[in-house]
């Protein structure tokens, strides 16, 4: 696969879409048929290994999916090279910042839960 492979992004977009779809479907089923969910309940779940892993997978899938989508829009509409580089750079920086923030939240919750 070459550096400018289109297939890589195509596959990433579809695999992450499936992961997001599975998460949305599971969440909808849980909300529809499970017992009422409180914030404390949700917080506890997100610090347990399964919950934290599921959220981490969700976050990775979401950010990768968003990156491919933003990149596609930019490649279609933004043609001047400098502007394209600036928009892609800003999008990448924003997504990385959000990803780091997500990781900090998840790990902080897990650490506080373990210390308790």
């Amino acid at each position, binding site marked *: 696969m070459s550096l400018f492979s289109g297939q890589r*992004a195509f596959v990433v977009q579809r695999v992450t879409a499936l992961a997001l779809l599975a998460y949305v479907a599971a969440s909808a089923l849980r909300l529809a048929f499970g017992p009422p969910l409180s914030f404390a309940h949700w917080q506890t779940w997100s610090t347990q290994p399964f919950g934290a892993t599921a959220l981490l997978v969700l976050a990775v899938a979401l950010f990768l999916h968003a990156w491919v989508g933003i990149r596609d829009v930019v490649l*279609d509409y933004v043609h001047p090279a400098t502007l394209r580089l600036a928009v892609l750079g800003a999008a990448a920086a924003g997504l990385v910042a959000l990803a780091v923030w997500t990781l900090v939240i998840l790990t902080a919750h897990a650490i506080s839960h373990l210390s308790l």
Partner: protein
Amino acid sequence: MRFRIYRYNPERHSKPVLQDYDLRIDSTDRMLLDALVRLKEQDDSLSFRRSCREGVCGSDAMNINGRNGLACVTPLKGLSEPVTLAPLPGFPVIRDLVVDMTQFFAHYRSIRPYLVNDEPLPDRERLQSPEERARLDGLYECILCACCSGFCPSYWWNPDKFIGPAGLLQAQRFIADSRDRATAERLQFLDDVYRLYRCRTIMNCTEVCPKGLSPARAIEKIKIAQLRRS
């Protein structure tokens, strides 16, 4: 019958204009091309391409009431008035309804639209089974009229880099051919951010193809073939 036709002559007009025409339709005028030929008798400055007048050469592709099609196979009956005619969207206009197809055919050439096979020639011909031949159905019929590429937003956005539905359908025609030996090279060439993967599956191509073909399906088959190879 009333017509509103896109007129642009770079030697005389600074920008395109829409010109109205009225034409008395004869009982022998069946297709839009018949009316265009008679309009040209009224106004010989009106320019458009046409040749076979039976949907085989693809010369008279144009935008008819907002939808790409061939004038020679578009019945006059059923067209809402005024019949608005414009050149294929996204293509540089040379004059009136005549567009510059240079880039379109450059993309076509880029996919190597011929069999690549260096094996020794057989005595008579390279044979195919009926099943192998059937795989070309829905692909070989393309007449390169550009109705599909001219109706594809991805092609409008990146006409210099995206091969477009017509070129990709032709690419699949040779990928699917059992006599061709360059499948790997063809798939590798197409594995590019622009050439194939600018297709956003909008499917306008399949919607407007005057031959009833499905470039969107051909593009999907190329992507599946690439996945199987990787």
